[in-house]
């Protein structure tokens, strides 16, 4: 009973517009690995870590976490995957479930560190020396424009553009309908364009 109570917040609610099997994805290697983890083969988690630690790290960095916190959060996500493995539904998309967990881990982290300034840091991409000048300037501008968006808009762009999730997957993570995600992505892009243009006009020192 107590265990069930602890797990309840982690069970991903299926949005009403999505039929129960719409998130299912046959032949997903992640699904097979996660099922192995569920069956007690915890070494299968190593393969999942290999595949997803990089995208997860970038998810947290682009959402404004400093490097050390982002690495801690990646670790936290995999601890939670182990801890809550019973709540994973075999046959569903592992990535959707993982980002649901990642989002909760990030919100918990922010809640614990409320009032501290660390998440205001700007994630600036590291540009290769060969790509200097215009390209570098453009990338810095883009990264700054992204940081100027509200956390909600930034998050939805990160999920759709960088993590390359489908709108229905994002809807399942955020608890809203696919059509709503589509509208929000477009609004976020429009604001990103406006922020980018403002920064470009002002110039970045």
């Amino acid at each position, binding site marked *: 009973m107590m265990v069930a109570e602890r797990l309840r917040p982690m069970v991903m609610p299926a949005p009403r517009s999505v039929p129960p099997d719409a998130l299912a994805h046959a032949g997903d290697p992640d699904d097979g690995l996660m099922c192995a983890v569920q069956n007690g083969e*915890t*070494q299968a*988690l*190593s393969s999942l*870590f290999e595949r997803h*630690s*990089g995208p997860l*790290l*970038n998810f947290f*960095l682009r959402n404004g976490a400093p*490097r*050390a916190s982002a*690495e*801690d959060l*990646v*670790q936290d996500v*995999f*601890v939670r995957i*182990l801890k809550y493995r019973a709540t994973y539904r075999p046959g569903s998309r592992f990535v959707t479930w993982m980002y649901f967990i990642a989002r909760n881990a990030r919100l918990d982290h922010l809640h614990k560190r409320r009032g501290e300034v660390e998440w205001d840091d700007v994630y600036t*991409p*590291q*540009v*290769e020396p060969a790509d200097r000048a215009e390209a570098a300037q*453009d*990338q810095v501008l*883009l*990264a700054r424009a*992204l940081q100027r968006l509200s956390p909600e808009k930034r998050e939805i*762009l990160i999920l*759709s*553009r*960088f993590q390359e999730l*489908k*709108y229905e997957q994002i809807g399942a993570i955020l608890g809203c309908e696919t059509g709503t995600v*589509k*509208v929000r*992505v*477009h609004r976020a*892009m*429009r604001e*990103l*364009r406006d922020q*980018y*243009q403002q920064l470009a006009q002002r110039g970045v020192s």
Partner: protein
Amino acid sequence: MNPCETAAVLLADDWQHQLEAPERAGDRLFLRQHLHECAECAAMAGLWQRLGELPEALPSPHQRERFDQMLEAYNAGQAAQRAAAPAPRRVSFFPAWAFHPMPAMAAALLLVAGLAGGWFLRGRSAPAPSSQDQQIAELRDQVTATRQLAVLSLLQQQSASDRLQGVSYGARLSESDPKISDALLHTLKYDASADVRLSALDALQRGALHAPRDSDLQKNLVEAFRYQQSPLVQIALVDSFVELHDQSARALLQRVSTDTAYSPEVRQRAAWGLAQPTWN
């Protein structure tokens, strides 16, 4: 719906590669033409493209090490819990308190003490040197395994006071038992309670004082520093580097003493640590 609104809907579909289907060739053509004519929509489409070209950060190899350590500790904890779990019972013979971690551990230790007494008395009445040595060795192994199990089990408990108790028991064993030492190190890095982390550091430090040449432990303590958010634990770690004469911590202290990301108290302590004669 004006052309820009139509294009907005189509752009959102295009970003999900939904316009690549043959039946949407018309939409694709419309969007392409509109982007030629409308600078605002074209700017947004271009921005989406360039967003995808932003460089990605690479995970450090250290992150993989942390993961492996976490998985190993998790597996060890699970194994300990499985071993400590009571067998399924149809009728409850033991009272409920017997399944709580503390009484269970006390009972286990009493049992081992009883066994030890029994072996000892039997050994006195019937000496048989070779088999006696073997029995004593077996008994020693059993005692060690029971203690190890008790400590690992306590360190996995939800309650911080149980984990503190686990650290306290573990402190007595960490010098001789690398598994306990690893579990304490894991506690120092990841435990949610600063009190438990401080206690784990104290236990590890005591172990390190008895084995001053244990460079692995010193390296691990230096590494544990970066996991700490609490200035209290950071300061305690600085003190331990000084006390252990840990040369490998010098570079870390130099960086901490000037890095404004740390609190002034921690920077001050790091500077104090560097000024100690330890480094000469």
